[in-house]
């Protein structure tokens, strides 16, 4: 049996004990090294909360979350987060910092030597398809949505984390830029072989980028499948997603 790098055991998450419906209920999930997990679900299905449990932005009400076999409650939270890249929709870039300052922030906080930071900056910016010198002094407001997204990915990769968490990373983009950046992400992921967990409500994106798709509905995991298996799932929620994206062919056997 393979060793999971991230493991959720019977996780419950509830905002208060008074409100009846939990955000997450009885969620168990094992993520193996090198996998790319797509957390697919509608708004309010709990997928973003699940992601935030992994880097300790949310604490499980019960159950446990393990990263590198250690409970997140036992981790030094700063150490955990610095080792886990985090990409959120474009808003997450710091508006008062240049592209370079944004990207180099975590290595700086980790007290890397200056020359190592410089070379890492060049490396990650090239990896996301941006010219390091052109963008170095630009501010996020001077970038297009797609460029901001790339910088966001570069920033998450900067400190070379083993795990990458992405919350609808390409959600705010137009379809053309989105397709382009998805292709690049596939190529990049092939090279860097990170463990990636990403949240999406787009079934096409989940099938394209994920090595495994985890379907969430009302705080529960209702299906886990490879993209290949996913299109044949009979679960009604899975069917709804596929039907909405007109991907139902080959399903009715």
């Amino acid at each position, binding site marked *: 049996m393979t060793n999971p790098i991230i493991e959720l055991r019977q996780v419950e998450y509830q905002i208060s004990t008074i409100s009846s419906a939990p955000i997450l209920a009885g969620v168990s999930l094992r993520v193996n090294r090198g996998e790319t997990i797509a957390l697919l679900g509608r708004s309010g299905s709990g997928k973003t909360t699940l992601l935030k449990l992994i880097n300790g932005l949310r604490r499980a009400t019960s159950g446990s979350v393990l990263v590198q076999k250690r409970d997140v409650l036992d981790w030094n939270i700063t150490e955990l*987060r610095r080792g886990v890249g985090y990409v959120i929709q474009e808003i997450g870039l710091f508006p008062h910092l240049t592209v370079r300052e944004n990207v180099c922030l975590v290595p700086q906080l980790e007290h890397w030597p200056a020359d190592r930071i410089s070379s890492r900056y060049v490396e990650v910016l090239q990896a996301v398809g941006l010219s390091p010198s052109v963008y170095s002094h630009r501010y996020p*407001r001077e970038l297009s949505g797609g460029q901001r997204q790339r910088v966001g990915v570069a920033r998450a990769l900067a400190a070379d984390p083993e795990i990458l968490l992405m919350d609808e990373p390409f959600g705010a983009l137009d379809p053309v830029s989105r397709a382009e950046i998805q292709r690049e992400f596939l190529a990049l992921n092939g090279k860097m072989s990170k463990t990636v967990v990403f949240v999406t409500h787009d079934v096409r994106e989940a099938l394209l980028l994920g090595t495994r798709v985890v379907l969430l509905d009302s705080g529960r995991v209702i299906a886990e499948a490879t993209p290949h298996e996913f299109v044949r799932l009979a679960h009604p929620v899975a069917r709804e997603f596929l039907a909405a994206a007109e991907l139902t062919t080959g399903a009715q056997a």
Partner: protein
Amino acid sequence: MNAWQFMTSHRVEILAATREHLVLVLISMVIAAAIGVPLGLTIVGRPRLRAGALAVASVLQTIPSLALFGFLIPLPFIGGIGAHTAIVALVLYALLPILRNTYVGLSSVDPAILEAAEGMGMSEQQILFRVRLPLASSVIMAGIRTAAVITIGVATIAAAIGAGGLGTFIFRGVAMVSDAVILAGAIPAAILALLADFLLGLLERRLRVT
């Protein structure tokens, strides 16, 4: 004698009074900012302290300025006749806009940005100084700007307790029932206020991050 004649014939005295006024305001503003901004940083994460500090600053602001100067005179150390008492009063007046804007600026940073910072493994201190403070700087500057304009006006009353400044002409003019003498103090004070508003406004815009 009209105001213009009076001002040209007393230009040396007016200039000296303007300089005095400016020094009074500058010292008060530096002290108020040195107290208000760090205090704002301290209260942002402490709701109870915040309510208390903002309430005290608000109450101070409601005390009529002439009365505040009067109250301070009999106090030991900080009171008495002269510029230092005036500075204490001016600092107390300038505190509220600076404190309030510092707090508002720090607490109105987009929560998504703060969560990104937290998710990147920045400590609370690092988030405060590297994210919140720079993003709040233009709002803080707006508070300093408001405080400066208020202080320039209130400082004219400081002449009543012997602190000098442009208020000297105003009080003298009132006693002499002479508009010309009053204007000799009021016009330079108004110009100072407009200038401060304009220059600090420029600074505020430069600090703004969009």
